[in-house]
């Protein structure tokens, strides 16, 4: 690959070049990046996309994040927590759809969803799925190690924003208010032995350029320090909730594509996932340009898979892509991708 427009070498993208890319609006450059990202993704991952689904086992929260409809003082929000027996049935219901990869989520409440509770849930989930990941509040290194031994293959943790001042403004109270404990968390996860770490910023909280640059630098630093860890990236876009009058800087579809293609070119091997918070039309279009993983048949409601009906109501996030697991598989097949259901086997606790 030769030098691209603006003298940028897309085959050896530097962090300085990414800064320039983020600052210019250039259709030709974006087109070139899309081509390069598509080609590189195919070489690295082939024509495959892995599928997973989130599973909410609890939604209690101790934090006050102004942009989230689920914050602790939101009393009108129904709160619940599944028992182990319910988790087992919920896992069985999700596995029956064909899914083999699960992301277990709790709200951020150490009180209601203790490390012990999470560990028991992981043990149960490991019996139903070949890959078990967690998206929960930040934990200590030893707690992560115990979860690793219980069967956790990956952890997802978003920093939300790397702008300390903005972070402080947006997180009014709760354990999450401590920026450093969260930003240092990926290192604790890496040291615990856990294999996959997915990171991201909630795009829109501040200038996305600064957050994405900081995220890239953070991941690159971790890659060098912990080369055995497989890193993943996600680029969730903020969806404004009712009654929130803060000023945000929304990210357009074009900017999303620019972010995703830059991520692929800068990190040839990182997994990139795209969630059901994006619209189906956009997901289907963008998935060629770096995506390796997508959620399918998602419910973001506690106990949503067993209930079946109404699974999209009252969820932590609104699901914008309501397609079933089989519908997503059919879409991928039609686009020439092999939908990969099994791409992992836990060798720690099997």
């Amino acid at each position, binding site marked *: 690959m030769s030098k691209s427009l603006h003298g940028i070498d897309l085959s050896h993208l530097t962090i300085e070049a990414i800064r320039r890319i983020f600052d210019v609006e250039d259709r030709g450059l974006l087109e070139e990046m899309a081509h390069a990202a598509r080609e590189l993704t195919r070489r690295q991952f*082939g*024509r495959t996309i892995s599928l997973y689904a989130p599973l909410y086992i609890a939604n209690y929260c101790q934090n006050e994040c102004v942009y989230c409809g689920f914050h602790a003082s939101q009393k009108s929000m129904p709160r619940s927590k599944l028992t182990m027996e319910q988790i087992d049935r919920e896992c069985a219901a999700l596995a029956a759809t064909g899914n083999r990869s699960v992301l277990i989520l709790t709200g951020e409440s150490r009180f209601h969803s203790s490390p012990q509770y999470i560990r028991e849930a992981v043990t149960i989930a490991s019996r139903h799925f070949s890959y078990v990941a967690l998206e929960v509040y930040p934990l200590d290194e030893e707690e992560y190690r115990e979860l690793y031994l219980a069967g956790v293959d990956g952890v997802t943790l978003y920093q939300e924003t790397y702008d300390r001042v903005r972070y402080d403004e947006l997180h009014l109270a709760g354990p999450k208010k401590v920026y450093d404990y969260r930003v240092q968390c990926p290192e604790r996860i890496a040291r615990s032995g856990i294999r996959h770490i997915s990171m991201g910023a909630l795009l829109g909280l501040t200038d996305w350029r600064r957050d994405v640059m900081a995220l890239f630098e953070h991941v690159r630093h971790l*890659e060098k320090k912990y080369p*055995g860890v497989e890193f993943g990236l996600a680029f969730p876009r903020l969806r404004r909730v009712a009654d929130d009058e803060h000023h945000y800087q929304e990210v357009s579809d074009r900017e999303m594509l620019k972010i995703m293609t830059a991520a692929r070119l800068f*990190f040839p*091997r990182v997994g990139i996932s795209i969630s059901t918070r994006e619209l189906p039309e956009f997901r289907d279009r963008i998935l060629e340009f770096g995506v390796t993983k997508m959620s399918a048949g998602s419910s973001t409601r506690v106990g949503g898979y067993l209930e079946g009906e109404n699974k999209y109501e009252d969820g932590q996030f609104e699901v914008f892509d309501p397609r079933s697991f089989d519908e997503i598989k059919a879409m991928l097949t039609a686009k020439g991708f092999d939908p990969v259901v099994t791409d992992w*086997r836990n*060798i720690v606790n099997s």
Partner: protein
Amino acid sequence: MDDKLIVGTREFTSRFFLGTGKFGNKEAMRQAIVSSGSQLVTVALRRIDLDETEENILSFIPEGTTIMVNTSGARNAAEAVRIAHIARDAGYGDWIKIEVINDSRYLLPDNQETIKATRILASEGFTVLPYMNPDLYAAKALVDAGAAAVMPLGSLIGSNQGLRMRTLIEVLIEEITGVPIVVDAGIGRPSQAAEAMEIGADAVLANTAVADAEDPPLMAAAFARGVEAGRMARLARIGKERAGATASSPLTGFLYDE
């Protein structure tokens, strides 16, 4: 021409091995195996789901093909050994390709851990084909540890860059005797596969370049022919390249009474 490749206790008439990852659909993978005549394929244990009978990757591999499970996902010797044990217990045989990779950016194999895993698994009766960085000391240690072949990378995996490691691989070809040398990663074109065979590799393993082609079965067949052409050229003894034309009257002729 009787030119069989012997690995462990098995004989192969095809010197083209195929990886089964990265295909857009499993039927294309099956056709690629058939059209290339490949008799040995490698499958990652992590991709095998026995509960999934309809789309289980193994059911797309033609009968009679030797299946070599690989340890993709292993970060050290202990994990590679564990994966090999799971594979054998599950009934996938005892042919194992060791991949120990503790570097998620370049996917470079860890030779030291690979040697350890090879020693353990070979002593347990596995037929072990280790994927390695082309280093002479490591290759010798692998042979001593009981490897049935040595599989140096041609260039970074998935890079399609061909034989960037050519000089080091030539050293292995020259010095390693007793087990075949299989060039494993980075081979992006049939001509590069031919080049590997011309310099004396015993076989070539490819995956990305075939899986990523618009027509994988056709590309697989092209690779098989590239491998065959390179092998035939090797056996036929390629003439030395010369920098310029050779003068028909020797320059030093005046020194001799003729």
